[in-house]
């Protein structure tokens, strides 16, 4: 393999891990709700979202394993990488909190994820385009579901409004990572493999603003913002606990079939 191709594959591998990690980590958080939701129908709806996300994660990990070419399986990539090697968005590792926090996290993510996957649908990499084409339909539903709850909570009762406002204040600072590009992201954008992330900011803001308006809410006032997870594996402290639990079986019984 010549040097540019090897470099391109290394970048693609990392790019796919970012996609896989983000989907899997959010799936895991949603899985924590299972059986504890506010109504049975929400248990069902959240599990649906979790199932779509894990389906997407598996496809990205499988492809990543092939691109890497070292024979690593989807499970080795998901369960045997340490925290510092995880490249999920910081937003999706944040704890569930109350249902407002979970729905605010979900909506901020879904609105962005839909734009991202619409971009990936146009990917020059046919494998990514194929994964994205199916996922766009799923994410369209996720966004409708989470937006619906943001609106219900914002324009619901005093209490629900107070909770959803607090949730957005607590989470908005994690969204800076949506649009921040490093060399790998630029390389993927230049090759037409993924969209220009910085160009997603305006349509994302427009979508979020419209939903907040329907929820009779204004833009959050919090001005802080952080980066680190998706590019550098520099996470909040929450991810370590999640991985300790998530990876416990594979760590405890290395190399077995389940």
């Amino acid at each position: 393999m010549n040097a540019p191709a090897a470099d391109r594959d290394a970048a693609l591998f990392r790019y796919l891990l970012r996609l896989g990690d983000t989907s899997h980590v959010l799936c895991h958080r949603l899985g924590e709700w299972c059986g504890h939701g506010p109504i049975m129908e929400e248990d069902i709806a959240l599990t649906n979202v979790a199932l779509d996300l894990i389906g997407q994660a598996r496809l990205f990990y499988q492809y990543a394993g092939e691109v890497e070419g070292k024979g690593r399986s989807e499970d080795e990539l998901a369960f045997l990488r340490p925290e510092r090697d995880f490249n999920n968005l910081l937003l999706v590792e944040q704890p569930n909190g109350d249902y407002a926090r979970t729905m605010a996290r979900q909506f901020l993510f879904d609105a962005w994820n839909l734009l991202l996957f619409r971009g990936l649908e146009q990917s020059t990499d046919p494998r990514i385009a194929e994964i994205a084409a199916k996922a766009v339909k799923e994410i369209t539903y996720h966004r409708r579901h989470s937006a619906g709850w943001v609106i219900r909570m914002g324009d619901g009762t005093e209490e629900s409004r107070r909770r959803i406002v607090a949730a957005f204040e607590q989470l908005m600072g994690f969204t800076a990572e949506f649009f921040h590009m490093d060399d790998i992201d630029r390389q993927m954008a230049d090759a037409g493999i993924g969209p220009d992330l910085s160009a997603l900011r305006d349509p994302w803001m427009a979508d979020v603003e419209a939903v907040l308006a329907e929820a009779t809410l204004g833009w959050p006032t919090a001005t802080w913002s952080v980066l680190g997870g998706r590019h550098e594996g520099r996470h909040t402290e929450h991810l370590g606990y999640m991985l300790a639990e998530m990876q416990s079986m594979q760590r405890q019984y290395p190399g077995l079939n389940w």
Partner: protein
Amino acid sequence: MAGQDRPELVAAPDETALEAAFQARVDAETRIEPRDWMPEKYRRFMIRQISQHAHSEYVGMLPEGNWITRAPTLRRKAALLAKIQDEAGHAAYLYSAAETLGTTRDQTLEDLHSGKAKYSSIFNYPVLTWADIGTIGWLVDGAAIVNQVALCRTSYGPYARAMVRICKEESFHQRQGFEIMTTLAHGAPEQKEMAQDALNRWWWPALMMFGPHDADSPNSEIAFKWKVKRQSNDELRQRFVDMTIPQADFLGLSVPDPDLTWNETTGHYDFGPIDWDEFWRVVKGDGLCNRDRLDARRSAHEDGAWVREAAMAHAEKKRAAKQNVA
């Protein structure tokens, strides 16, 4: 109305005639539907049975839900999520079936939270290892299928139809559980050991799922008369044992029963006595997880109250706004 001063004289013959007609329909294998006249006792009996069944599906999500975050592979994690989602669907479907009898989901849930209504006591046992997830699918869903196949012909229409739909998904769960067990039983020594340990702990509780011997089961007689039930608890238990032992043999695992033998004469497996004291102790609260299960259900309900209120308040605002426009 003429009957008003002495209602019992008017009501009594009517009731008797209606009851006779109801029983005749049952005997003729005509399904009872929500709009049909039915004895108040039958209605209450069905509400009790269906909501208990619904609670079992709902509470049953919790023990397995504990393992979503620890599932050993992505494929298993997805399958477990899907299975638990099915159980939520079963619960929703059964709560609706109960509502056709004039109760509400809120009421039935309140009975669960207050401890008045029961759920299957199997869920009071802890799910300790990944092999327990396999064993639950194999044995607990397996036992549920035997019970529920029998209920597909129960006399109350909405319940019978719910069972037909649910049985299909349960048999998928059972196969999935058996597949987990097959992988473990053919795996490394520590996996096989894990599988045997899980079978040791779940075997007897699974047999108890069919309920006490019919002689000790106060409702059996009336349940047969109304064709709610068509086979005795012991008959169903026997069917389950006969079905499951060859599967355990295939896995190379043994059930923890020294008395288990194949009986040439009857063509069935004979098995040892069930410890009914343990059964009643666990039903009455001495299981490892009784409190955890009920606490989890109660707090999900209480913590979710503001969410449900928000949804209602928003829907109300929408409705009012629409009316203002119109």
